[in-house]
């Protein structure tokens, strides 16, 4: 039980700081054959930010790749006649994307300020981005909704399935089944404690993300809570369903871990962007409940979308929840055959 309450804390800290510390204090190499005031200004602005440190100036453009590979440099800035090229290491796409988007923002600001104070005939600078090995973009505030999804899945689905499977092992389930109690009563009473537990975890993760990671909740908190309730309900139904199919605790655990947790971690878009996956895997991702939850939670938390913006997700999640619940209640009755 204590582990269950500490786990969300651990996860949010690992995932949250794991991503954010990498981006701070990134070494930047600059290739600047022009050395004019505009380029100086840009380099200056970059070094002022907390994200970048100007590490070195390159004398030859050919060195760009080698410093990326071995030089401990995260970003190479190449000034051309009227353009800036950003070169990053796409083998770590998350970091690379974040770096380029940060740098782009800073350069844009720098250029704009420059244009205001200088004469109109100063050469315009167009920013041209180049992300080696991974051309897609991906947002940064992915972590908190993702961790929420995973933690809730873990507590609700896994723990529920294990707890019901345990009753099968000890034989107390048989006693419940010969009693006049209705299956729905058994299911509800087995899931209620985990429902409460997941609400506690949900609150923990939210508090941590707001006060420790400084990820804001832009949208309505009530909407986020409502959305989460539906998702918790869905996870619980899924847990019950797994436990009905699983004859023992160990099987229940393996099924939840392999069938649910792995795809959740890998395919939900938490670690890798869904758009980059092969079509078959993208299709698999569509049927993962957690994918819809993460998307909706992200919209509400980060973009501040109202209920109209996540209607589709809400409908899909509710439909899945009702489906799993219906199947569980139906299957539950005839279990000992």
């Amino acid at each position, binding site marked *: 039980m204590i582990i269950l309450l500490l786990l969300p804390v651990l996860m949010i800290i690992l995932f949250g700081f794991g991503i954010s510390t990498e981006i701070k204090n990134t070494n930047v190499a600059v290739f600047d054959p022009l050395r004019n005031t505009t380029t100086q200004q840009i380099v200056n602005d970059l070094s002022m930010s907390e994200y970048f440190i100007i590490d070195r100036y390159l004398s030859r453009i050919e060195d760009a790749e080698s410093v990326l590979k071995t030089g401990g440099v995260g970003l190479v800035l190449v000034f051309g006649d009227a353009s800036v090229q950003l070169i990053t290491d796409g083998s770590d796409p998350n970091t690379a994307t974040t770096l380029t988007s940060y740098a782009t923002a800073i350069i844009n600001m720098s250029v704009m300020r420059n244009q205001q104070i200088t004469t109109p005939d100063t050469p315009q600078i167009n920013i041209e981005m180049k992300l080696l090995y991974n051309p897609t973009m991906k947002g940064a505030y992915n972590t908190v909704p993702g961790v929420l999804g995973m933690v809730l899945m873990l507590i609700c689905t896994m723990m529920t399935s294990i707890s019901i499977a345990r009753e099968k092992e*000890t*034989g*107390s389930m*048989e*006693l419940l*089944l*010969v*009693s*006049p109690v209705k299956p729905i009563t058994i299911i509800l009473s087995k899931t209620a404690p985990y429902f409460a537990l997941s609400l506690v975890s949900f609150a923990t993760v939210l508090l941590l993300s707001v006060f420790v990671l400084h990820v804001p909740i832009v949208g309505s908190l009530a909407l986020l809570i409502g959305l989460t309730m539906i998702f918790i309900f869905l996870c619980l139904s899924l847990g019950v369903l797994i436990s009905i199919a699983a004859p023992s605790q160990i099987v229940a655990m393996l099924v939840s871990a392999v069938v649910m947790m792995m795809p959740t971690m890998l395919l939900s878009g938490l670690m890798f962007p869904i758009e980059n996956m092969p079509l078959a895997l993208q299709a698999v991702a569509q049927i993962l409940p957690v994918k819809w939850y993460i998307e909706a939670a992200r919209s509400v938390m980060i973009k501040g979308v109202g209920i109209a913006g996540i209607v589709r997700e809400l409908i899909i999640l509710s439909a899945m929840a009702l489906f799993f619940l219906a199947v569980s209640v139906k299957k539950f009755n005839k279990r*000992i055959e």
Partner: protein
Amino acid sequence: MKTTVIKVDNLTKTFGRFTAVDHISFEVSRGEIFGFLGANGAGKTTAMRMLCGLSRPTSGSGTVAGCDISRSSEEVKKHIGYMSQKFALYEDLKVWENMRLYAGIYGVKRREIPKVIDDMLATLGFTAEKNTLVKELPLGWKQKLAFSVSIIHRPSIVFLDEPTGGVDPAARRQFWELIYKAAADGITVFVTTHYMDEAEYCNRVSIMVDGRIEALGTPSDLKQKFAASSMDEVFTMLARSAKRADN
């Protein structure tokens, strides 16, 4: 006057091509202690599960406490108690907590629960152990507790699936005293066992071999019929013909 509380007619259960219970028929009267004997794998538990409404019969019919076991199995559940082979009370709960939980589950009225618990603790002589965790009780005590809990709602029939597995003879004797008491109170006791000394305690016994009932009668009738000095001999004679291996 004898009232029939269990009536089974050609009850059969097959799993794929395996016939676990093969056309069994018998009747049990109210207040009777009915021993349901058989080697492991003979089909005792399967038959019992059908009677309790846990498993649907493949063919044949049966009524328990006046309710049809195929059509109204939920109705059957209101009139029976059940004690499974495995010890199935919650080990992390105290003695009285288990009683309260099952009293609630089996629909004892909320107002009556405290009295029911007190009576039961007194009958068992467990009053001092009211707050003991069930896992700290010796096995024999646990089984007595499990039996009492299974009749907490005064069912008309209680099904006991090998209730005395693994306990010493003294504890078994005490357990049977509880069974006699329940029977004297008008509860019909349907008990499976493979201890043949226990078979002697039953009013009537049936012996299952390979899914069929091969013998049925009072222990003394059966001993006479098979010219045996004990139920153990009767059983050995019948069990020898079994084709199914012990599992």
